Structure formats: C-alpha cells, structure tokens
C-alpha cells in the first residue's frame, strides 16, 4: 500500500515536471523562440498568423511553422513553407525587420524567388542583418 502510494507520488511529480518543462520553457514575450510582444500566441498557427503577411498576388503557399533562436546578438529565423497543391508553385518572399520601437530596423529586403514542388515543404532560414532587429514579418507574394 505504502509502495503504491510512493509510486503514484513519483508518477505525479514526473508528470508535473514534464508539464512544467513544456509550459515554463518560453520566456515571457516569446513563443517558439520568436518575439511576440504583448500579442496572445497560444499555438504555432497563432504565431505563423502573427508573423506572416501577403503582398501583391495572393499565394496558396503557406507558412506552417516558425522557430527563432539567437545567433550571437542576431535573431535567427527558420520558417517552413508548404505547398499542399498538386502542382509546382512559385512564390517570392522577404523578411521585414522591426526594431524595439516598432520602426523598420533595416531597409526593404529584395524579393527572393522560390520554387516549391507539389505536395512539398521547404525550410527557409535567415539571420537578422543587425542586432537592432528584434522582431520580423515574413512577407509572401505569388510569382504565378
């Protein structure tokens, strides 16, 4: 009886510790390593929605995942783009860098053309051009 109680207590503490690791991992103002400020981001979909914009012709290519980390004092961003259609799609993208005051931290980047095979994913990676860039937006435009 006593050993069963101890076992239950150990299992519960392991479970709690596991949950604490998952929930307590992020520092406030960040989600999946990416800066979110005071926005409410409860899931990856929320984060992707908050950080992605479309300009010009709309594209069916969608960002599905985003993760950020630091490379020294620079913000590093990985974004997964998904083409779930049955045809090859062409899209261009650029990152917009934002400073602590919400102003542009860097000049407008050039559009980068990309080809995605049908039913495929592609990971795009970038590093902020300056330590002043503390936030970003991924901008997509169709090249069809």
């Amino acid at each position, binding site marked *: 009886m006593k050993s069963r109680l101890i076992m239950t207590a150990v299992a519960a503490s392991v479970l709690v510790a596991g949950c604490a690791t998952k929930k307590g991992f992020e520092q406030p103002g960040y989600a999946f390593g990416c800066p979110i400020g005071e926005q409410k981001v409860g899931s990856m979909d929320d984060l992707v929605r908050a950080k992605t914009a479309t300009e010009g012709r709309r594209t069916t290519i969608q960002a599905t995942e985003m993760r950020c980390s630091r*490379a*020294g004092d*620079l913000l590093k961003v990985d974004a997964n783009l998904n083409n779930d259609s049955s045809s090859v799609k062409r899209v*261009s993208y*650029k990152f917009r860098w934002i400073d602590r005051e919400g102003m542009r931290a860097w000049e*407008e*980047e*050039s*559009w*980068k*053309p990309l080809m995605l095979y049908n039913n495929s994913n592609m990971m795009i990676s*970038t*590093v902020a*051009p*300056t330590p002043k860039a503390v936030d970003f937006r991924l901008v997509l435009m169709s*090249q069809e």
Partner: protein
Amino acid sequence: MKKTFLLVAVAALAGGCAHEKTSYGDARGVETVTNTFGSTDLQLIAETMARSMQNAPVIISGNLPIVTVQEVKNKTSEYIDTRAITDSIRAELQKGGRVRFAVDAPGMTQQTDEIKRQQSEYYAKESAVEKGQMVGAQYRMEGNITSIVKEVKSTKDVYYKFNLQLWNIRNGLLEWSDEKEIRKTTTR
C-alpha cells in the same frame, strides 16, 4: 496624288498613336525578363553572402576585423560586373557594422594620389595627412562565379554558382566560405 496624300496622313496618324509608356518599378522586385544574370541574382547573392559572412565566427569574435575586397573572377560565358556584386556585399556588411574595410587594390591609386596631394605646398602641414598611417587589412575577400548553360530547341537552362571566401592574410588560413546557387530556366 490624292491617294498618296491620304496614305501619308494615315501613316503619320498611326505613328503618332503608337506612344511609349514609361513607369517606375520595384528595384527589389523579381526580374525575369531574360535568363541572363540580372538584378535579382545580384541582390540574392549579395544579401545571402553578407548575412552568412557576418555570422562567421571570425567576424563575431573579432573586434571589427579589417577586410580588403579582392577580385571575384567571372568564369561564366557572359559579361557580369562582379565589382557590382562585391560593392553590394561590402555595403551590406558595412551597414551591419561588424566589419571595417581597408582600401582595395583598384582604389589604391586614388588613395595615394590624395595623400601626395595633401602633402604638396598648397596644404597646411598640421591638417595634411602623413604618409605611413594607413591600416592594413587582416582578411581578404575573394571569390568566383561560374555557370553551366544547357540549351535545346525551346528550353534554356542556366545554373549559376557564386563562391565567396575570406582568407586570413597573416597565416593564409581560409576563415570562412559560402556558396549561393541559382537556377533559371526559360521555355519558349
């Protein structure tokens, strides 16, 4: 006579109607007019190389390392102004504030000419620069661009590979290197 006059009038009218239209475009937009080396290729290469280089351990750990830009060899079959590529890379790195640039070989004549000019009798000695004060670079940046072109009846495929290297001048070690590949296909 009347017929000729009418023809000339119609031709003049048609000529007048065919007017040109000029408009400004996005200098950073994707350019796909032809598949020769274009502005998008230049911007892609410059941005990728500059971002990669400023994350190189030697740049991060160095205290504003001094770099000199050497030649990027054009090994493609077309004319490419490789100086425009290195100028863009240099501008992006300079703006990033992690690297300083020393005068390069093509700029050396202008630099020494200016020093000589300031040392002439026309300048006040106290404000004129002295000889022997220039700072030598610790690293040199060089690279090359190659291409493979394949063409059949209605399809032309061009593959570009740009390679950039950062060499330590003192010990001859390669401190950083990166590549950017671009493929463009045109079908008629």
